């Protein structure tokens, strides 16, 4: 036993094989060549990696979407330390970080990818052009707007956002009206206005923060991995002014094998994301593409985004402003697709098995940027940042002007090319993927918690899932070690005569609490009259 005390990995191995049969050996168990069990590497890294793999497999085996999301959250009662990536706050020099954490190769081109050359929209263009011109004039002229009349104080960006969201809505309406007769996918598409889009994934390959290094330095068996890169939870929060979704996915532009091409270079960002203005927050994992599991229209077609927040950036660097547009396009596309992938049963630990595509537009009515994003992988954490051959690919156009200006109540310099790009996005028909299992990691019978037969289980899962992803503020403050405790009790033992009352004085770490380490709901005595007093006090829980 004394030897085991110093060899923790060995102890772990023993734990795994605790139950050993002691029955008499049988004849057929003998063989001429000895069959040894596989030799396992019991170094700390390997054992930890094996444990992680087992956790990921356990997540993969969970049956429904909601349970998978709860399962992801199981390890942290107080939530994960997230690096917040907000759509409307773009710090200086942020593109490289975003490309790294989304594993995106960016292709800048004057035109949309060749894939769109086969889509003919010339007849559509003539049908909608006049209406769109008129709409722009009406919306731009509509200076007598609610904000002006109510004298609301708005900054320049918010003012632009009001016009741009109204315009995107109008243009979307005109295009849908003229296309719905001929394109069934447009007719049946679901249109969302300002949907809530949230996404969380783990990204690796960045240098560890100082506190992790300090922690590892203090542990003898981890000293050799002090500088090894660590994973970080990246959390995106944003919205689209208009988003269209359908019940079939868009066709991918490249196949999975084509996107393994090493020429698609993804920049490496090795620093801590906080060096480029990313803040931390403790949050539960929430992946929300604007709707709840169970909605039939699960695949995004296209989304319009606002760009008013670019006006309030104060860095005075025109090149960085262009990079900021790319950053917004990449991030919002990736996050929307990632949350959709989560609703299809994939998670940040279980990679997508087929590519997903979306089309993103960033516009203020006059300036338009088009993005086409193909999601090939969501596996960006740990070793996968080195090993994963897949890359996500984003095609983008430069910022284009739909018109030069308005002179005497008429549009000047209308650019048909921009409108054509837009129409091509709409005319890109989604298709069923024949021969592809769309939800390989979900159960055949139960895909969402509503499919369960047990009433109580259904209700519990629905309630807990919504409660978790709402990320509502805690009713009590979290545990913390105060600065004076750190100085006078931990770093310097100056108060050794004091009564020990705080958890850290007993080696307890309250933040290591698991999600299910709590009391279940109490069932009042009146509701269990047929049971003895001490039985059935707590409601059943269904943690995955």
């Amino acid at each position, binding site marked *: 036993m004394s030897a085991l005390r110093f060899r923790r990995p060995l102890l772990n191995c023993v734990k795994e094989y605790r139950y050993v049969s002691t029955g008499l050996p049988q004849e057929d168990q003998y063989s001429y060549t000895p069959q040894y069990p596989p030799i396992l590497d019991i170094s700390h890294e390997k054992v930890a990696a094996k444990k992680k793999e087992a956790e990921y497999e356990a997540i993969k085996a969970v049956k429904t979407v909601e349970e998978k999301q709860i399962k992801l959250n199981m390890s942290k009662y107080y939530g994960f330390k997230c690096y917040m990536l907000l759509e409307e706050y773009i710090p200086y020099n942020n593109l490289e970080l975003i490309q790294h954490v989304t594993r995106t190769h960016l292709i800048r081109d004057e035109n949309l990818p060749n894939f769109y050359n086969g889509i003919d929209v010339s007849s559509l263009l003539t049908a909608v052009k006049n209406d769109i011109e008129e709409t722009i004039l009406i919306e731009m002229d509509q200076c007598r707007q609610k904000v002006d009349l109510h004298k609301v104080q708005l900054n320049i960006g918010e003012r632009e956002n009001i016009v741009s969201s109204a315009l995107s809505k109008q243009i979307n309406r005109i295009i849908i*009206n003229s296309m719905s007769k001929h394109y069934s996918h447009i007719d049946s598409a679901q249109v969302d206005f300002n949907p809530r889009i949230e996404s969380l994934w783990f990204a690796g390959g960045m240098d560890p923060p100082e506190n992790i290094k300090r922690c590892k330095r203090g542990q003898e068996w981890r000293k050799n991995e002090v500088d090894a890169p660590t994973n970080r939870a990246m959390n995106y929060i944003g919205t689209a002014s208009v988003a269209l979704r359908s019940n079939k996915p868009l066709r991918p532009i490249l196949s999975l094998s084509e996107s393994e091409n090493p020429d698609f270079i993804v920049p490496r960002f090795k620093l801590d994301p906080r060096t480029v203005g990313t803040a931390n927050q403790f949050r539960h994992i929430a992946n929300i593409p604007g709707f*709840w599991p*169970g909605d039939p229209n699960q695949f995004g077609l296209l989304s319009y985004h606002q760009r008013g927040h670019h006006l309030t950036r104060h860095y005075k660097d025109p090149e960085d402003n262009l990079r900021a547009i790319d950053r917004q396009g990449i991030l919002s596309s990736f996050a929307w697709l990632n949350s959709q992938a989560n609703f299809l049963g994939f998670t940040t630990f279980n990679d997508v098995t087929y590519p997903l595509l979306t089309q993103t537009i960033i516009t203020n009515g006059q300036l338009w940027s088009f993005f086409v994003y193909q999601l090939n992988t969501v596996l960006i954490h740990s070793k996968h940042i080195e090993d994963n051959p897949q890359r996500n690919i984003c095609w983008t156009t430069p910022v284009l002007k739909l018109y030069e200006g308005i002179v005497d109540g008429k549009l000047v310099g209308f650019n048909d090319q921009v409108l054509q790009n837009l129409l091509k996005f709409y005319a890109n028909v989604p298709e069923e993927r024949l021969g592809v299992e769309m939800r390989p990691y979900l159960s055949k019978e139960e895909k969402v918690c509503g499919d369960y037969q047990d*009433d109580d289980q259904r209700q519990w899962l629905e309630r807990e899932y919504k409660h978790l992803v709402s990320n509502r503020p805690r009713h009590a403050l979290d545990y913390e070690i105060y600065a004076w405790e750190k100085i006078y009790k931990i770093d310097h033992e100056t108060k050794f005569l004091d009564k020990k009352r705080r958890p850290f004085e007993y080696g307890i770490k309250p933040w290591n609490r698991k999600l299910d380490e709590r009391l279940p709901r109490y069932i009042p005595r009146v509701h269990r009259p047929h049971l003895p007093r001490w039985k059935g006090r707590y409601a059943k829980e269904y943690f995955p």
Partner: protein
Amino acid sequence: MRPSPHLCKQHLGWHFKKLWATQSARKIRDAGIEQKLLEKGVPVVKAEDILWEKRPLEKIEVVGLKPKPVVFDHTHPNWHDKTILTYRDNNVLLKGLQQAKILTNTVELKQGLPDFTLKSTKKIDRRVKEIILTSHVFDAEQKILPKVKDPERPAWNFPRVYGITQPRVIKLLLNNLLQLIENSSDLEVVKQRYVLDDTHFSYNFEKSSDLIQFELTGDTLLTSTKPLPAVTEEPTESFQLPDIHPIKPTITLNKENIYEVRGIYPISLKFAKSHPHTIFVPHVETEVKNLYEEPVTEAQIFGRSLLKTFTVAASYAKEKYGNDVTVLPKPVVVQCVHTNGRFFHFGIFQLNTLDLEGGVKNVWFQTGRLPLFETCCYKVGRPVLEGYNNEVIQYLDAFYNNV
């Protein structure tokens, strides 16, 4: 032994306070020095006059400071001594529809809407159900909802519920239903329509020496290339306005002194699609309130519809025919859809005159409140839509395609 009881026997703070109280009441005794000095011809000056510098303070403009908030009193630039009576989005009238009829000089010729041919909407019913579910259940907004109160135990604090707010439900429902109707309507008709969001209407008039102004937002306004034709040409002089005596018709209108008298029709008439067609009015139950906390009644909701529609029609008529017109050369007709997300209320208003005390009267037709469904929510963990009523979508379709 604890020393504190003994130490606290003499309450030092109390003594200290008493001392200050007596000393502060001390008066400076007049020693007669001033008198003597004056007798000797020595000028006596107050110490403050010499010590305190007399310099007018210069006002310095500091760049970047937040401007002072505007004070809403008689110093306000828009202050008027004459009080105005206003009706805004969140107000309701005490007597509801009856009072609204008196204010707008309107009569109801008959119960219900004028003859409408409702088309079957079997083709789109499945999609309508999808839209209802999407806007009431599947939208992922999680905002803090109004407090839950139980009238039986008003002090009980329920946990706050997070979910889709009512304005968002109404917005999603109306936009998607409108889009669906446009998809299923004739393209020629659709090309004549335009949907305006977040507009503002204002109309003011004088009635028995009261200055009244209706200031309302048109959250969604459907406009068209040509105005709707008159619904009825029946003479209205013989119809009587309702009598709510002894209540004054202007009761529960807001009395304000800070105002701008203005008439606003939000879209310029130079555009072809500027004629009002249908106004969609959201009814957010936590915002639309009585002055004295009673629950809003059905008649008050009907009154709100009438006033909203009147404001749209009247501000348009004023913009089109000028300020001085009384009996309109051609009546203005505007339709109204009033909803709280579940109940729909349809009305049609025909503006014959802007003279609100004359013999010619305006005309109002309306339906009752029609439910779109019975329940739509999660029931035991499953999204459920029960009791769908397709009459509503038929009315909406008929309203949209009315030319």
